[in-house]
């Protein structure tokens, strides 16, 4: 009996082993390829091959003066709650909170970015002449030598009574957003508190909030607005608004402020700056760089641009009636265009297509960035894409066309106002990041490396890779893993990885799965947009259909607005038929869904005015003057479309002749140790002349989140030589590499070169074995 019981016990213990099964990435997977900068639980869901997370990084609440004036009464806490599925109140036409809204599908992350220009920090007691300056409370504050005594000071000026035996210090004062220095109340502290309350630091990783704000420069009505998104809870004491940075040009002023108060402050603070609405900037959002250093600085500070939001789309522009575009023949560039080039009083009449500022448009700006890189050595406009709402109703991520409630408080609080006043606005877009987990560090790392895409409001999943892509095909179940090992994802760069032959590009797109109430729309096609500058310095572009067809899915049922059937997913592996290894270029993917009814068409129909009916004008007249534009057709208007194609734009991949072609070799592990030796060969497509001539140093870094190796070769000592394939390259070796930070499993390794303004990087997923780690491509 005893033997039986022991046997049973042993068997039970064996069966109840709860450790992850062999091969489970959660067991002992690779460390994250980015730094963990905050205290939090590890996410239960961590995918080294990354997952798409949907968010909105552009949200205004009542803390923005304009939102407040529009009647928005809800604040940041409400915005984050809405993002997670709660209902919030919206202002009606009389600014009363009688309407409500709720997201059918929560989003994964959000940032409240109220305008900093009206924050202010109300220092109640420190300003001589203030009405409270001579009050007993403020006198006590100024007398307090011990910071702990400041807890005697509260906002008790609202009550005559003091507080007996107040605590000298408190354990919770280091909680983000808990401001124990009660001498000042501030919007900024409140925003931090709201972000902390919303941020899920548990292993569930259910939602991520970011602290942020909008820097709102509008010289003479030209939009030079940009959002500042902070990596974690370490943020400047006061956000620098346009009021504080006006002494310097925009955007250099906000860069200076963020560098001083955050990035270079040594406090653990980090931030990205995201410009938006170049379509309303009169060409001034992306002005000529002051010099090469300024160009590199912009690339460092502004890795992204908000390409789609409520106030229109900024990808490109095509006038359907004129049959002419701004540097383009791409007829799909009529999508969600505004009629004005900026918001200054001198915009009437707006410029013609020929005179339209090309820097209002992201595609043109990216092309100009290539030309500037050629002349200056640095590309100031190397920007990935994000989407946002810019809602002033606090309804983050509320981008459904059907049932859209507007975004500007009372000014578009009713169907009549939305159609009559704001026909050309739209529900806005979303930011999608490919990140290992839903946490601030992971999402921020994705923003920094530009592994992002924008959507016009729907939620398709889209992957893009480029490189040799050996073993990558639409038939291969391990397409994703192989693509990360043999290519760079969206947002990255590559060199002449296949010599004179074109790199290979792999695209995999899946439709928005939708909800029970609102099914997702099938996909029509996938395009690759190539931009380059030819040998004569002329900007060129070409749009290639790589999967699906324009003839597909066009059968929209106009009576019910039911879209036609199409593709649930599309996949393509493509090579550029016009690839020229000597010409720098960018490639990005545009995914088009099947045609659907625009929000205005749905709203008009709901109000009894059918834009497709022969008697539409009569219906509109009966309904009211505000609905006259329900009957606007594409034959009458250069840009307006009652039927649209929702879409997604991936961040570009940049081809640079001087970038890294390949990395070969290995980092070998000493048996039983976390140390190893490095022997790598880095092949380059080109190097700066000054480097070859020995005038510049060269720094080589290898990291995977944590730095594994760094060496700086003094000028003249860089060991560059031609390799067997005829590429310039250098060999780096080291006998002392610390591998402790890598963890187990296949790591993502970044090899980075820096010499003066020359930068190049090569990011691939290497293969781990008992012997060490090595690039897959050898």
């Amino acid at each position, binding site marked *: 009996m005893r033997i039986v019981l022991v046997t049973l016990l042993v068997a039970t213990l064996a069966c109840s082993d709860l450790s992850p*099964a*062999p*091969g*489970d990435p959660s067991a002992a997977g690779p460390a994250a390829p980015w730094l963990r900068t905050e205290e939090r639980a590890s996410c*239960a*869901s961590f*995918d080294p091959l990354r*997952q798409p997370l949907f968010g909105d990084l552009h949200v205004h609440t009542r803390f923005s003066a304009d939102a407040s*004036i529009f009647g928005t009464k809800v604040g940041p806490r409400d915005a984050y709650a809405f993002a997670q599925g709660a209902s919030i109140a919206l202002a009606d036409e009389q600014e009363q909170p009688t309407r409500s809204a709720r997201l059918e*599908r929560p989003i994964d992350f959000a940032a409240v970015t109220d305008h900093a220009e009206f924050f202010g920090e*109300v*220092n109640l007691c420190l*300003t001589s*002449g*203030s*009405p*409270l300056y001579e*009050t007993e409370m403020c006198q006590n504050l100024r007398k307090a030598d011990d910071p702990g005594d400041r807890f005697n000071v*509260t*906002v*008790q*000026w*609202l*009550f005559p009574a003091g*507080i007996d035996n107040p605590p000298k210090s*408190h*354990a*919770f004062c280091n*909680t983000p957003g*808990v401001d*124990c220095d009660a001498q000042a109340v501030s919007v900024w502290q409140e925003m931090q508190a*709201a972000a902390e*309350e919303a941020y899920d*630091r*548990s292993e*569930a990783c259910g939602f991520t909030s970011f602290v942020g704000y909008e820097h709102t420069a*509008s010289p003479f*009505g030209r939009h030079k607005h940009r959002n500042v998104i902070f990596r974690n809870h370490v943020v400047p004491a006061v956000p620098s608004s346009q009021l504080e940075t006006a002494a310097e040009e925009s955007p250099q002023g906000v860069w200076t402020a963020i560098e001083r108060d955050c990035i270079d402050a040594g406090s653990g603070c980090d931030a990205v700056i995201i410009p938006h609405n170049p379509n309303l900037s009169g060409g001034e959002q992306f002005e000529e760089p002051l010099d090469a250093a300024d160009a590199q600085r912009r690339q460092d500070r502004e890795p992204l641009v908000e390409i789609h939001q409520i106030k229109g789309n900024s990808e490109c522009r095509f006038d359907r009636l004129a049959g002419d575009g701004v540097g383009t023949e791409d007829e799909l560039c009529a999508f969600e265009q505004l*009629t004005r080039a900026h*918001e200054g*009083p001198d*915009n*009437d*009449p*707006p410029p013609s297509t020929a005179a339209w500022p090309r820097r209002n448009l992201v595609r043109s700006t990216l092309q100009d960035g290539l030309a500037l890189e050629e002349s200056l050595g640095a590309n100031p406009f190397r920007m990935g894409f994000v989407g946002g709402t810019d809602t002033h109703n606090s309804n983050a991520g509320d981008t459904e066309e059907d049932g859209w409630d507007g975004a500007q408080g009372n000014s578009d609080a009713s169907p009549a106002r939305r159609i009559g006043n704001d026909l050309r606005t739209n529900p806005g877009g979303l930011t999608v990041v490919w990140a290992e987990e839903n946490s601030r560090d992971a999402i921020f790392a994705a923003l920094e490396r530009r592994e992002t895409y924008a959507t016009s409001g729907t*939620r398709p999943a889209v992957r893009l890779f480029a490189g040799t892509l050996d073993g990558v095909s*639409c038939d291969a*179940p*391990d397409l994703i893993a192989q693509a990360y090992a043999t290519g760079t994802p969206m947002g990255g760069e590559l060199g002449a990885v296949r010599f004179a032959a074109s790199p290979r590009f792999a695209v*995999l797109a*899946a439709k928005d*799965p*939708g*909800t029970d109430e609102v099914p*997702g729309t099938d996909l029509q096609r996938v395009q690759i947009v190539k931009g380059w500058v030819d040998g004569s310095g002329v900007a060129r572009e070409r749009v290639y259909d790589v999967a699906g067809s324009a003839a597909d899915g066009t059968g929209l049922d106009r009576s019910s607005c039911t879209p036609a059937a199409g593709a*649930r997913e599309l996949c393509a592996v493509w090579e550029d038929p016009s690839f020229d290894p000597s010409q720098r270029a960018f490639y990005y993917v545009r995914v088009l869904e099947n045609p659907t009814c625009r929000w205005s068409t749905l709203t008009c129909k709901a109000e009894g005015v059918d834009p497709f009916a022969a008697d539409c004008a009569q219906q509109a007249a009966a309904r009211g003057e505000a609905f006259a*534009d329900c009957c*606007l057709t594409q034959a*009458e*208007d250069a840009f307006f479309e009652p039927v649209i194609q929702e879409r997604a734009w991936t961040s570009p991949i940049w081809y640079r002749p001087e970038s890294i072609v390949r990395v070969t070799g290995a980092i070998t592990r000493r048996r039983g140790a976390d140390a190893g030796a490095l022997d790598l060969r880095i092949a380059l497509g080109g190097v700066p002349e000054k480097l070859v001539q020995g005038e510049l140093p060269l720094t080589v870094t290898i990291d995977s989140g944590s730095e594994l190796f760094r060496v700086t070769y003094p000028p003249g000592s860089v060991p560059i030589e031609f390799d067997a394939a005829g590429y310039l390259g250098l060999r780096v070796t080291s006998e002392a590499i610390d591998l402790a930070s890598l963890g187990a499993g296949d790591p993502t390794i970044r090899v980075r070169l820096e010499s003066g303004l020359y930068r190049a990087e090569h990011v691939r997923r290497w293969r781990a074995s008992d012997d060490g780690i090595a690039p897959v491509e050898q």
Partner: protein
Amino acid sequence: MSVEARPALAFPALRLLAIGAALIVAVRAWPSTAPSAAPRTIATLVAAAPPGASPANDDEILFRAGAAAVAADDPVVEARLVKLARYLELGGTAEESDAELAEVARGLGLAGEDVVIRRYLVEAARLALEHPAPADLPDEDELRAYYERNGARFAAPARVRATHVYLSAARRGEALAADAARVLNDLNTRAVGPWEAAALGDPFVRGAVIDGPRDAVARSFGPEFAGALESVAGGSWQGPIESAYGLHLVWVVERAPAAPPPLDVVRGRVLHTFLRERGAARVQQRLAALRCRATAEPGCVS
């Protein structure tokens, strides 16, 4: 039919300036806020507001409290006054300093009438009302007790972790169902483990791992798939389950029930929720006191 260009005042930035300018029609003297030697409470500051219409609503009360409490040279107010003055071309010469322009605007009563300044001061007062006093901060025992009572609100939802072999409807067409049956049989016959099936099926954009609560799974695969996954037994290959994209053979590796995490993990969220809830009643009390003092209604107890 053509669409007219938007009127200038449709643009938010200009609209704000125009509102301020329009209010110049109604001019009121700005109350003097010179400091006095005797300590004052906000109540007396409110009472010291110039005679006029009694506060009709909480926003007016808060505005007066904010106006009395905020420094006369508050930089946000100053910047707004300068902007208004320039827009309205109030300066006599081009050499006026910002301070001089602000003073001109203040003299015209714009500090009391401009909608942006008014809302800023209202917000400052509201924030002050809501700002937690040190006495509001809980000690550790109190916070833990609060979390024990309310832990369910912070609980992580039930979660499933699974792997899947994906068969694409687009790629396989009419052979989809048969292919799914064949692959399922193959997986079970060869006793393929949950993490050993990477070479089977079709590439899936989101990879081979499913991990998250039901609503997250629904957002990735569609609501029907998420619902069906709830009833799949773990420990072997099951299916096929249909998603918005095709069929999936799934191996449920783990199901974790909903559970509140340790307090230390969610401390910040819990603390802010605690402070906000504790503060709600306090804010109403403070506002009532302000209201009481401002209106000085008979029988009103401040």
